[in-house]
């Protein structure tokens, strides 16, 4: 069983670092790939632009997607990726500060596999992030194997 990377789409360096710190204790076998804006995330997932020749091994096992992103927003990334038949099975977990109901509804409507709020309190953040990582990389059975 190959372990695709965990793709973290996050423009905030602080948040990226906190996510990495939160995932550390899990000792995931997956590589972590970070992209800083929505446009890059779409290109990466749909194999376009700089990632046109990306290998199958680089297809993420899990995408952790922020909503407030430069260029394309998290919602737009979701909509494009989930509209693509090849990329659609990749699990995307929205990890965001927003608890606005409209965001939540739009994300699920666009095909998000999960919507998780980033808690402010560090301990709680640690707990949530590791739970997400654990669930989507180890527990969840991926549809149709590696793409």
């Amino acid at each position, binding site marked *: 069983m190959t372990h695709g990377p965990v793709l973290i789409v996050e423009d905030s360096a*602080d948040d990226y670092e906190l996510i990495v710190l939160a995932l550390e204790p899990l000792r995931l076998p997956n590589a972590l790939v970070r992209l800083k804006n929505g446009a890059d995330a779409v290109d990466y997932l749909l194999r376009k632009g700089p990632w046109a020749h990306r290998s199958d091994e680089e297809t993420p096992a899990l995408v952790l997607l922020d909503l407030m992103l430069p260029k394309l927003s998290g919602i737009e990334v979701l909509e494009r990726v989930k509209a693509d038949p090849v990329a659609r099975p990749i699990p995307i977990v929205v990890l965001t*500060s927003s608890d606005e109901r409209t965001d939540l509804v739009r994300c699920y409507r666009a095909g998000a596999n999960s919507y998780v709020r980033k808690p*402010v309190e560090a*301990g709680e953040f640690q707990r949530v992030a590791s739970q997400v990582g654990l669930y989507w990389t180890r527990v969840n059975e991926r549809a149709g194997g590696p793409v």
Partner: protein
Amino acid sequence: MVVPLLVTVAVGVTFVWQVERLLDLMRWVEHTDQVIEVTRRIETRMSRIVREARESLIEGSSQEEFTVRREEVLDASQVLMRLVADNPAQRDRASTLISDVQALLQMASPEAAPRRGAQPSPEEENPSVRGHHHRLGEKMDALAAQFDAFVNVEERLRLERSARAANAARFTTWSALALALLLGGALALQGNRALTVVSRRYERANAAIVAHAEAQRQRDEESRSIVEGVMGHAIVLLSPDGEIRKWNAGAERLKGYRAEEIIGKPFSLFFTPEDQRAGVPERILSAAREHGITASEGWRVRKDGTRFYGQGTVSALRDRTGRAYALVKITRDMTEHRQTEEKILQLNQTLERRVEDRTAELAAVNRELEAFSYSVSHDLRAPLRSVDGFGRLLQERYADQFDAQGQHYLSRIRAAAQRMATLIEDLLRLSRVTRAEMKDEDVDLATIARRVVEDLHRNDPARDVVFEAPSSLPIRGDRRLLEIALENLLSNAWKFTGRLARAHLELGTIGHADGKTEYFVRDDGVGFDMAFASRLFSPFQRLHDAEDFPGTGIGLATVQRVVSRHGGEIRAEAAPGKGATFYFTLGEM
């Protein structure tokens, strides 16, 4: 009219009857005369027959003469019998008389005479002749006496009848006179009465006419003084083709012309040149003539050329044939009204524009607020997460490099970050309550409240809290917002009764002066000083020490927003140490 006619008829009938009776009596008198006359004729004939019969005894007789005389007597006798047929006493007497006459006739007939010589002479008197002669004389005397007696009776009768007739004639004359007088009197009386009635009627009619004329004069006077006195309205009498005939003070005031300078001029003078060219005055006239009345309004011209906004009617006065013989034009100066209207219209337009502007501004502010909330939701939390996250890393991984004081400061930094996060969360909740779209659904406050209290109990099972509420409190409203309101009110009540061994919370309703139901949430906790009640519902206002009763001061502001979004009001009653009660209404949404 009937009475004189009846009297006349009665008088006539009476008079005719009396004359008839008089004539009847006169006939009887005449009848008696006839009887006497016939009787005397018979007597005369008989005495002649007897005389001739006696003479013939001497000189010889003629059979032919005797037969003629006898026939005459018999005819007369028959007449007499007919005449007395109506009177039995006279009839008997007459029949006796006639049978005596017949007997005498028998004796006097030539056959009954005794034979005498061929040469009779007075000297050679035959005794039988002498006896016969003598008997004839006797019989004739007796008969004459009988005739006299009969005639005497008749004469008496005649006398009686004449007297009766004379009486009747007198009576008739007098009664005719009396009846005539009566009739005349009656007619005069009747005539007098009729005359009295007629004259009375005439007097009344006359009085009515006089009164009517006076009333009419008064009405005319009143109308005239009203018309003349009306200052607010111009009242103008026009000929059917629009020539001015009469002019009141109001017209002078409104249009500036004095009566003497305008009477005889066409009323189109009051119209603007544009209206005159467009034929407006003519149209108004013909409409009034045709329909009886027409209303019009528009800018009109005064004598000095200034304009006023006139509003009024032109109505037709019609004669008996329906022809309009004059028109009455009543005009009111509506300039101020018109200007006010225009001003109101302008103000309305301005107001509408302002409302539109404000609405647009409000929408922009709302959008900004939404963007702001969104941004707060996303961006303000991120740094806090960093502060807390890295603070925790310091605490965990570099604990040995901080002394107790350093550790304390780190935990203070983290606590502040978390408190800030809570504030942001509450603020967002408040703004969400303001922005949320309202739903109108059936909601049961009691059920919600019980669930909220159960949740509070679950999170704080050590507390002994008694909660009272009716089995149901159904209302119409937005369920989610009402849940938020009850959560805030009940968690406040829960919080501020925290020091009691056993707390009492209550949800209920009371009647309200406006007929609205007032709901309340009551606790028997620490309460508060009513002096600060006015600040209770503003955001971030806290009446208690944060260490004793932690909170952001946004809960009641949120409740207040929910209540006001439901068209209701909220108030509080409390005293320090005696609990607090929050009353709220929920009006029309």
